[in-house]
């Protein structure tokens, strides 16, 4: 499946009756890289997991390549092309590394596991270990690798760099950029490190209290320190 477009319109969602994400609309063209930034607790994670179908959907539409998915179950959305790397990693703790990877294959042959091992050689070394035995960074790699094995056409990444060594971060961001440029996936990235986020993304959404308060080109944001100051509460990017 090649990269797909993502259209979100009037989306509201939350946990049970509590509404967290309110009236969010945006769209990402196929193969685009978009970053979502915002302070702690502003609803970034909630937005991504709503797209994946893991929270309570209150209103609005989500369309992948034009097809509405907001009524579908998470597994149907996965087959519609969405892939998700959760912030808390959520690898299967009681499964081995290899079993974790197999669980993400979406029916593809097991020979494809090599893709994952190629990206993260560390995982190959640890493939017989149980999930809970992995180091923090290894768990993060596993979570990303597992999502990539499903060949998503829209990839939702929630702070995929947390806990990774700088050298791996660079490699991984390069790999993501590559995937998008090759037209394989559209990427939506939540990232805490502004520098990284702005360097990676073409477009940026800023979230505050569940709403999108700014959106535009990432250059526009980098070149306007007062905007960053306003939304993120720090002066400038160095």
């Amino acid at each position, binding site marked *: 499946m090649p990269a797909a477009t993502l259209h979100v319109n009037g989306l509201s969602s939350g*946990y049970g009756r509590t509404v967290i994400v309110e009236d969010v609309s945006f769209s990402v063209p196929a193969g685009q890289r978009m970053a979502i*930034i*915002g*302070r*702690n*607790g*502003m609803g970034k*994670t909630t937005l991504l997991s709503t797209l994946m179908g893991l929270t309570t959907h209150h209103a609005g539409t989500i369309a992948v390549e034009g097809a509405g998915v907001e009524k579908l179950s998470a597994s149907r959305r996965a087959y519609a092309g969405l892939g998700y790397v959760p*912030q*808390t*990693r959520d690898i299967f703790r009681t499964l081995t590394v290899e079993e974790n990877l197999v669980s993400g294959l979406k029916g593809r042959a097991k020979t494809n596991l090599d893709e994952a091992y190629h990206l993260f050689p*560390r995982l190959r070394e*640890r493939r017989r270990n149980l999930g809970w*035995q*992995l*180091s*923090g*960074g*290894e*768990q*993060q*790699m596993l979570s990303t690798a597992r999502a990539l094995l499903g060949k998503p056409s829209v990839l939702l990444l929630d*702070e995929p760099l*947390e*806990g*990774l*060594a*700088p*050298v*791996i*971060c*660079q*490699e991984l961001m390069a790999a993501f950029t590559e995937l998008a440029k090759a037209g394989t996936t559209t990427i939506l990235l939540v990232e*805490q*490190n*502004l*520098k990284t986020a702005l360097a990676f993304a073409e477009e940026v959404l800023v979230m505050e209290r569940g709403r999108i308060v700014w959106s535009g080109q990432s250059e526009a944001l980098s070149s306007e320190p007062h905007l960053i100051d306003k939304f*993120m*509460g*720090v002066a400038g990017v160095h």
Partner: protein
Amino acid sequence: MDTLLDIRNLKMNFGGLKVTDDVSLNLAKGSRTALIGPNGAGKTTLINLIAGAYRPTSGSISLMGQDVTGMKDTDRVRLGLIRSFQITRLFPDLTVIDHLAMAILQREGRSAGMFKSYHRMPEVLDEAMEALARLRLDPLANRVVAQIAYGQQRLLEIAIALVLKPKVLLLDEPAAGIPSSDMDRVVAALDNLPAELAVLLIDHDMDLVRRFAREVIVLSSGAVIFRGTPEQLGSDPRVRSAYLGEDA
């Protein structure tokens, strides 16, 4: 006694994997040391060994001159050896302030009290609120932890460690998941630590490491491959290739 924590020739393996390979290090009073290294290098394991969650296969650990190699983890905590967790470990159904009150009461040896709730102990409440305020978590004081965002949980994890009044503090990636915008809270909290405290900090955020540490130790495949000041770090080729990458 200037050396608070002294580790000699520590070794440990999981099955065939050497996770800790003859590591020696010491932390003196007031030291600010960063422990960095590639993923899976054995940093968290080292903290687990120091804190007493795992037993080393050989080597010794002493705390303030006392050999603690075989000592129970809880006793080490009582001696003032406190750690935080890389992957947060909190009580999902308790409130934010409950966590701090519990830590304070435990520190003071009052956690066995069976009658008076901490809500009726103004000194405990004040200290807890103050600790929260330092990390700007005070608006969340009465929220249940399961309902606060992940980044906020990370801050709480730090707050608990601080309130236990450590003498030696082991922080495992305290700043992961905290946005650049909020990093100042963490940095401020770390800056405000009592000067005589010895801190060992693991983090992959090199900005934080450079701002915080006076000494850096790099671990790779369980062994120490570098020890020096943050300034020397970028010029070491091994560290560059194993950890930092080229544009660091």
